[in-house]
């Protein structure tokens, strides 16, 4: 009773349906399009939305990169890559520039993406209004009626309580001036990367059965009041202890022995690239 998996796991009918949903999502930027999310060989909440998009889009000549928390070697990223490669045989890369499909959880790569690349983000909670209203029936209506006062009120209350907006990752954004969208949760640091992105960004929520999109060159604006501007995480005065980069999202690392705090690029492949660039420069300089 041996069975051979179909190319990219799904039957072609399922892939078509997911692609149609993705096209609809592109046509209505930021709108959550429902789809009949399949059960996957990995668990709900572990990237099934992103994986379904990746599998429905991928072809034999594609080059795939998968990251989790900015790292290519994060265990779940490895697990997803293994599944895709096992069912498709496509080549896998860690080099952001070499990939044409990038599936990611919680980060947008530091390196600017190009028009010929697709970024696929895994989304646990696609509904930016869920904290305002628990019922899907009502949140759907609020989106339809462009009624986002509840979301604004949450931010207003944070300012009243804490003197500033206290969102972490998942700071909501207006897409194309119409739909409010959760940015999947990426850190606030990455929100501006969505604005006028050259690459198509697709977001997939498998458990909640929604696909949404930010098409290339679309306005994405983080929600903020006129007098309380949106602010990204601050890494002021800090730099990566490995490659020295400053304008990047940093991981905070605490030395268990000394208790000392140091910082490192969260995007590991970006860090390695910087290191290699440096090394090359040093080598070249030494020959001068």
């Amino acid at each position: 009773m041996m069975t051979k998996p179909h190319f990219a796991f799904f039957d072609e009918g399922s892939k078509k349906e997911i692609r149609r949903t993705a096209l609809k999502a592109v046509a209505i930027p930021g709108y959550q399009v429902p789809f009949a999310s399949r059960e996957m060989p990995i668990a709900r909440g572990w990237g099934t939305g992103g994986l379904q998009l990746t599998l429905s889009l991928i072809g034999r000549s594609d080059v795939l990169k998968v990251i989790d928390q900015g790292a290519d070697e994060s265990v779940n990223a490895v697990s997803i890559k293994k599944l895709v490669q096992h069912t498709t045989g496509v080549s896998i890369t860690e080099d952001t520039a070499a990939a044409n499909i990038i599936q990611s959880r919680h980060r947008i790569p530091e390196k600017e993406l190009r028009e010929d690349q697709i970024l696929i983000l895994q989304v646990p909670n696609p509904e930016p209004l869920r904290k305002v209203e628990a019922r899907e029936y009502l949140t759907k209506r609020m989106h339809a009626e462009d009624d986002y006062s509840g979301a604004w009120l949450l931010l207003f209350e944070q300012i009243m309580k804490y003197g500033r907006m206290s969102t972490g990752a998942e700071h909501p954004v207006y897409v194309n001036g119409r739909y409010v969208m959760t940015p999947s949760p990426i850190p606030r640091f990455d929100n501006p990367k969505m604005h006028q992105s050259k690459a198509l960004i697709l977001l997939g929520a498998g458990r909640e059965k929604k696909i949404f999109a930010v098409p290339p060159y679309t306005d994405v604006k983080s929600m903020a009041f006129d007098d309380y501007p949106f602010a990204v995480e601050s890494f002021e005065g800090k730099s990566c202890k490995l490659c020295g980069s400053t304008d990047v999202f940093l991981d905070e690392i605490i030395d268990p022995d000394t208790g000392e705090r140091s910082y490192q690029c969260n995007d590991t492949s970006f860090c390695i690239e910087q290191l290699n660039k440096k090394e090359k420069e040093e080598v070249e300089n030494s020959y001068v």
Partner: protein
Amino acid sequence: MSETPIVQVRHLQKQFGAGCPHCLDKESVYLEKNYCTSCGTVHAVRDVSFDLYPGEVLGIVGESGSGKSTMLQGLYFDGDMTAGEVYINQPGLAGHNVLTLSSQQKRYIRNNVYGMVYQNPVHGLKMNFSSIGNIAEKMIAAGNRHVGSMEKRGEELLKNVHIPLRRRKEEPQNFSGGMQQRVQIAKALSNNPPILFLDEVTTGLDLSVQASVLDLIKQIQRELQISMVVVSHDLAVIRMLADRSIVMLNGEIIENGLTDQILEDPQHEYTQQLVYSLL
């Protein structure tokens, strides 16, 4: 008083049930009050028409079940009406029966043209949000995106309704009934609406608290010249607030005129009872 009404209500109708040939006629023998014994339909609001003029306070008085609250819910789009027309004489709205507008347009009216104070503050406030946030909500809904200006306006309103400013960030669930009602009034006024609805706002409050809330409403009316519709079962409240009044019974208007006139010389038997009980 200006000649053009700010709100015109025409032939408002609300029935629960399908109705039948027996209860189409208001004088039908099948009707027990506003209940049809043949088909079981309740005619909550029957052919109600009236005008509201700029700056006036219109009282609507009647016993519970008279249809006054159902009618107010209809005006504020909290409940659908079976039939009828409502016109608001405001820029962009004149000439449209607002009952037939889209829910987005109705929301615009609720946020910009109307203010509403419910009998139960739970319906008008988010009890676990700050008081200032509650007031800001309406301004946010009307498009304000400046925290400083909303905070300032909120504080001004809270001061006007006599809520100590140090409690502005507290949640209404910690407040007494009278204070909650005052926060609701502040919220209703946040966007300077030309029209304010008050539904049994003092019912259930202590007598002394009632008096202070009524004072507040009078003061607001004097200072802001807002047109108000005040619904109450209590003729004393109506006497204190309303210039002109409508008496409703079984879903119908049975009497209307200047409040003083109604009090001095009630025409309808029911109104007479109501007035004598007040004395």
